[in-house]
């Protein structure tokens, strides 16, 4: 920020008009982002509840909610579940599936490619409620499609394999984004380099490691960052399992909903929300750092 004053005013607006231009943006960000965040910060140090005396007259309890959260086995379990959900469905599931589909679609006839990509995209663009309904029917205990295919009637997938179910569900649901991103990235890998590598006798894995990956590394990081954050904050597993059975799929967003809205503990819920926000920031910083290292 050592620029000369004239150079920083590239648009030639002058200070007053420049401020006039950014004011609406600041107002919107303030009203819908900064204020709610600060308000959450405030609620997190109170015993605010949805109903009862603490709804009318909340008391400041300091860091009580945060110490409670750290000591709360339900919160810790929820955090572990969330990390497992992100790792299983986003980092492993969506990235690997997305890459496999994208790379295998490069060498198939166009009609096949169109059909496959359309199907994968469809899973992504359908409304959550519709998708949830389809999956509840798919995994249903009494006459669900999956049980019919596997000829294992009576298997309550969502109750017997709750985490596996929502991880597979979310992989299916979100693979399209990774697929699109990797398709674009792979088309930027020069075919000549691949050909040279092949002539030099490089196998498939070596070609991937030494030719393809260096070209798409930035895309892999961007993709992982985005889908990790989305998955971390994803609420749609609730539509399948409602956090059950007995909290077995209660990821943090569901945990907050259950405690804050269903249980009425708005103060505690706000504190957890803030912890989630911090975790999000840490994830984002981690990836941004990786990206920077790559750039330099």
């Amino acid at each position, binding site marked *: *920020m050592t620029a000369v004053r004239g150079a920083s005013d590239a648009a030639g607006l002058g200070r007053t008009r420049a*401020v006039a231009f*950014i*004011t609406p943006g*600041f*107002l919107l*960000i*303030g*009203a819908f982002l*900064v*204020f709610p965040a*600060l*308000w959450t910060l405030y609620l997190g140090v109170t015993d605010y*509840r*949805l*109903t*009862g*005396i603490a*709804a*009318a*007259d*909340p008391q400041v309890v300091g860091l009580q909610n945060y110490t409670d959260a750290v000591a709360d086995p339900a919160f810790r379990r929820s955090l572990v579940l969330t990390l497992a959900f992100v790792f299983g469905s986003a980092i492993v599931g969506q990235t690997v599936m997305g890459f496999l589909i994208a790379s295998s679609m490069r060498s198939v006839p166009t009609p096949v490619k169109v059909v496959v990509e359309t199907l994968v995209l469809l899973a992504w663009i359908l409304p959550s409620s519709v998708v949830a309904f389809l999956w509840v029917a798919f995994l249903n*205990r*009494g006459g669900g499609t999956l049980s019919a295919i596997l000829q294992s009637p009576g298997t*309550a997938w*969502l*109750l017997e394999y709750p985490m596996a179910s929502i991880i597979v569900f979310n992989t299916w649901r979100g693979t399209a984004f990774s697929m699109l991103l990797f398709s674009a990235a792979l088309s930027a890998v020069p075919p000549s380099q691949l050909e040279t590598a092949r002539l030099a006798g490089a196998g498939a894995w070596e070609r991937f490691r030494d030719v393809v990956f260096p070209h798409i590394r930035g895309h892999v990081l961007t993709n992982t960052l985005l889908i990790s954050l989305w998955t971390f904050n994803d609420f749609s597993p609730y539509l*399948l*399992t*409602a956090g*059950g*059975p*007995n*909290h077995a799929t209660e990821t943090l967003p569901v945990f907050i909903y259950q405690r804050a*809205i*269903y*249980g*009425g503990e708005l103060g505690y819920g706000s504190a957890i929300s803030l912890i989630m926000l911090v975790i999000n920031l840490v994830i984002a910083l981690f990836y941004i750092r990786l990206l920077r290292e790559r750039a330099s």
Partner: protein
Amino acid sequence: MAPAQSPRRSARVRRRLAPVVAVLVAGGLAACDSASSSSADPSRNADAKEVSLTVASNAIAGGKNAAEAEWYSSYVIPRFVEAQKAKGVTVTVKFQPSGVDDEQYKAKMALDLKSRSGADVIALDGIWVGEFAEAGYIRPLADVAGSGVTSWDGWSQIPKAVQANASYQDKPYGVPAGTDGRVLYFNKKLFAKAGLPQDWQPSSWQDILDAGARLKGVSGVTPVQINAGTAMGEATTMQGALPLLVGTGAEIYQDEKWQGNTQNVRDVLGFYKELVDKGLMDKNFQLGAKGRDESFAAFAAGKVGILLEGDYFWRSVINPDQGSAPMKSRDADVGYALIPAKSKGAGIRGQDVVSMSGGGGYFLNPNTKYPQQAWELLAFMSSPDAIKAMLGDTAKVTARQDVNTQVLGKDPLLGMISGKVLPLTAYRPGLAVYPQVSQALQQATADIISGKSVDEAAKTYGSAVEKVAGGAEKVASS
């Protein structure tokens, strides 16, 4: 916010942040304001010629409480509009339906009322009155609609115990809609297959276990369904833990203390444990997100032997005409028995049989634009003619004695509920903290279903109750 900057730049940042700060301050003030509600003039807009009112209830056409939803559209709305028209007032009444679990409905209403919006007349469960009243979401009827409400002729027809369902600290906050009772339903066909009597009346928990063991021999049948787990919410407490608890001789709140980790609670959890260990219950009903609905559907399909429920189950779920899980052969195939105490004489007040009762009512939104007209609508909905119109050919323990004497004879189950169950039933405490105790109890049953030991589940429950009750001295343990 922006540390380690040159003084000139930070001054500029400060100036740019000024509008943001202004928004924060304004928003903060608005948010602080939302909690403090002052009592507004009950006669506001009393002379309006154009009035619009909304009624909210957890009822929806073709789903939950379908008969009630139907009643709004075919009776309440047209008749009330007509009656007002005769007075020269044009009223538009809307019904705002819901068809969800009670806890979700409760959260929705709390958020509506919190933001000072929502319907003008709102149906609420009696156990929510305490916490809603303390939060200032609802107010005594006389505060909202004026002292005129006390002269309503309906009050004399409503028994005090039922009025308590819609009152808080002895002040009426709403008009009760009636009460109910819980019994054990059983499938007579399955009982015949298992060699059990058609007029079954267990006299102890052991009798339920014995009958369950016999039913287990019939293939494809869940012998017993007594609600447990957190997914069912209050239905677990009311149709599971509490009817069992009163069967051990204790109420959830007695002598100014909550039941903590007591022998009574451990007995209840032990009974659940036995049902699970002996394979008499279906875990999937207890733990699934829609387990209660699934258990209803299974009962209607003749796949459940014994099920503990309120008369709601009979009237609104397996009702062959308008039930959410209609059972065509209900009248022929479904039997009912009183809920036994743990053993003879072990129930509260030394009873052999026990039950629990509750009930909701209709409340006025304190922020209604038309308090007088909203009260008129509420009184209209609570008139004998309106209640009889809702019941049609069916029966229900309504709030009004004058209606009950006419309708209860129509249905043998409801006759039994009013004759045999209501005299010995128990009610939940109308305290704001009750729903949290209830949630702890639900969690304890969920722990049992998931395989924890009775002692472990009871211990966790005990400390959870101590936390919500505000200290160990408010909790009984033994």
